[in-house]
């Protein structure tokens, strides 16, 4: 009898991290919800892009939507844009927002802790498993959208957000880089999901926290906020990837957005871990939720936001809303020059260079009584350019709808011969007139000129 107890000294070993990670992955992938999500992410974008690319009416209100019929890479970017608004935050809700709460619902915490024997390791394996599933879902979305676009339209050059043309290889690299860039804010939302799942336990609020945060940030992004606040938000990289599609790339806002997102991911994950390892799992009346816990989770994140805003405001070159007349004129002139050259090629006219065109733009917002700054659909610009071999100067009028995140849609307002027709006749058939209506992007962090 005594042999049972008088054996070798009893050791205390937590479960190996790799095995814990594999078990968490098994549990996640055994859920029908995860399987359905994977199926939808793997098939949905391909079907959507293939179907929409063949339509005569394209989603021109979405960035790159107007080019879906021209190149397969545009479809992936339309899907990316939609995913950044809703799909990725929702996926983080469904995966990371539930990864801890599900154990509360099943009543398995005590079992799991007695087997794993290290709350810290348990937290790490759960967080890693959730991140892995989210990464797989994001890769499925990206791959599916690319495959759908390439299958339906093919790999052709992509028109960037400043009108320059990306060759298929460059377009592929940049599209993949854009998808990679949004993994950072996805991590931030996933970390908020982990925090909600730990702090709010069985409450549906825990599950919904990333989605609610996304909704809140979408509303905030619509406001004419100072640029320092805008780029300090954890979801800013969800729009900043567009900067990759200008030449030179607007990497400043993107890097800042990625940095802020990763900062949020680290802080929110650390907070979630802090709350988790201090939870008393023998207190059957508690599932970890409570006002005090929520306070301990929300206040530090609010402090992070305030510190980031202060840091960007102190060090960033831009002030105000970030959309000023000078930036807009520069962006519009550049885009127009690139697109004019594209149109020239499509019409098989003698090639011109941007330098020869010496394009410039003059913009005004809302007339003399309104300050020429900030977003709005009342920007009116006149673009002028030199026609090579002629003394005349061409000009065209554009009505601009500028949004607070720096994106604008320039809508041709004459003369009809330049931007009045939405199609041009090319050697291979009708194609969209690139200077009838086009998208552009203002660098919000570009220095604001004084005076």
């Amino acid at each position, binding site marked *: 009898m005594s042999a049972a*107890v008088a054996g070798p000294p009893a050791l205390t*070993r937590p479960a190996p991290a790799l095995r814990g990670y594999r078990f968490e992955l098994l549990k996640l992938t055994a*859920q*029908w919800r995860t399987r359905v999500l994977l199926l939808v992410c793997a098939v949905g974008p391909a079907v959507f892009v293939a179907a929409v690319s063949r339509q005569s009416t394209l989603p021109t209100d979405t960035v790159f939507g107007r080019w879906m019929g021209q190149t397969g890479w545009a479809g992936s970017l339309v899907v990316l844009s939609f995913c950044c608004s809703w799909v990725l935050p929702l996926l983080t809700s469904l995966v990371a927002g539930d990864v801890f709460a599900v154990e509360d619902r099943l009543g*398995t915490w005590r*079992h799991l802790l007695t087997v794993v024997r290290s709350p810290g390791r348990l937290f790490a394996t759960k967080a890693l498993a959730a991140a892995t599933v989210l990464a797989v879902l994001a890769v499925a979305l990206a791959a599916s959208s690319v495959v759908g676009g390439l299958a339906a339209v093919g790999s052709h050059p992509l028109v960037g957000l400043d009108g320059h043309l990306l060759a298929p290889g460059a377009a592929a690299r940049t599209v993949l880089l854009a998808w990679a860039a949004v993994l950072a804010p996805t991590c931030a939302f996933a970390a908020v999901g982990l925090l909600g799942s730990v702090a709010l336990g069985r409450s549906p609020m825990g599950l919904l926290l990333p989605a609610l945060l996304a909704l809140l940030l979408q509303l905030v992004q619509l406001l004419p906020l100072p640029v320092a606040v805008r780029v300090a938000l954890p979801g800013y990289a969800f729009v900043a990837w567009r900067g990759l599609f200008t030449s030179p790339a607007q990497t400043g806002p993107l890097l800042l957005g990625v940095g802020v997102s990763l900062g949020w991911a680290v802080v929110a994950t650390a907070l979630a871990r802090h709350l988790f390892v201090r939870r008393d799992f023998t207190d*059957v009346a508690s599932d970890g939720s409570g006002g005090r816990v929520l306070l301990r989770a929300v206040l530090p994140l609010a402090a992070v936001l305030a510190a980031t805003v202060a840091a960007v405001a102190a060090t960033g070159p831009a002030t105000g809303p970030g959309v000023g007349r000078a930036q807009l004129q520069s962006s519009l002139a550049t885009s127009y020059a690139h697109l004019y050259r594209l149109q020239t090629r499509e019409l098989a006219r003698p090639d011109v260079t941007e330098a020869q065109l010496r394009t410039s733009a003059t913009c005004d917002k809302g007339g003399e009584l309104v300050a020429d700054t900030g977003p709005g659909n009342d920007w009116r610009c006149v673009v002028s350019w030199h026609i090579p071999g002629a003394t005349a100067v061409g000009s065209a009028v554009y009505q601009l709808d500028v949004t607070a995140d720096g994106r604008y849609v320039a809508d041709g307002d004459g003369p009809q011969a330049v931007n009045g027709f939405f199609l041009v006749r090319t050697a291979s058939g009708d194609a969209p007139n690139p200077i009838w209506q086009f998208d552009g992007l203002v660098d919000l962090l570009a220095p604001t000129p004084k005076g």
Partner: protein
Amino acid sequence: MAAVRARGVRKRFGDVVALDGVDLDVGEGQVHGLLGPNGAGKTTLLGMLLGLSAPDAGTLELLGRPVRRGSPVPDGVAGFVDGPGLYPQLTARQNLAAVADLRGRERTGVGAALEEVGLADVADDRVRGFSLGMRQRLGLASALLLRPRVLVLDEPANGLDPAGARQVQSVLARLALRGVAVVVSSHRMDDVAALCDEVTVLAGGRPVFAGPIEKLAAESGELEHRLRTSDTDAARRVAVAAPGVRVLHGDPARRPDATALVVRASAPALEGLVARLVQAGVAVREVSPVVAPLEAAFLALTEGQDDDDPASAGPDAEEAR
């Protein structure tokens, strides 16, 4: 050396005192029962034994190692509290394989563990479709997989049918024979009587009894018995006159039964009553306890204050002395 040794263990959750001065000794090869009403602190104590929390005060040793805050329980301790903790989307085999993996055991033991608790034929079924009793047995299999030296089980017979309960009892008895220390909580006195060598009774977080099961049964003192005789009226007259015997109105937990007489008496007084009935020519057909001795002792220990309160006297108030 005791496999489990606790001295003066205290635990609070905010203002609530969950455990207050609990001592516990469980030797190797011993099955120790933990009894108490809901909220008595059983789950909290079992959770401590499994390393889910540490005492606020007092000492706890498992397999000779002290267990404190931040120092997990040693290998060799297994079991479950508050349900077996299974994943319904996984099969029985997957649930056990995960436990084996996480604790660095070979998966080859999974089949044997399932066989031991009688679940081998549903090994590849998802736990979602299991009954409560099957889940309890799977939870036990999960603990067996770890070849424990201390096995901690919270209500292992909960939801089991008589055959399942007997199977669990036989598994635990075999483990005890192998030298495993078993600590088990239960509300079922028949389980406790069948399994346990010693018991600790908790009430309001405090131990109100600790010792051998026989001693607990002896704590019951006067018990209520039901007598069926050839002449109930004559038997009642004899009982009223018998020393140490109180005749009650009946068993409030049962339908009124005019053919039975319910009396409260100690064992010697009951023997005297039976002798007097025989002398009076009344045939005794059945003498059975209304409440089992263990249950009576449990109720007496955990509801002692209520019993002392005259206002709590119910329909079983004595009719005559």
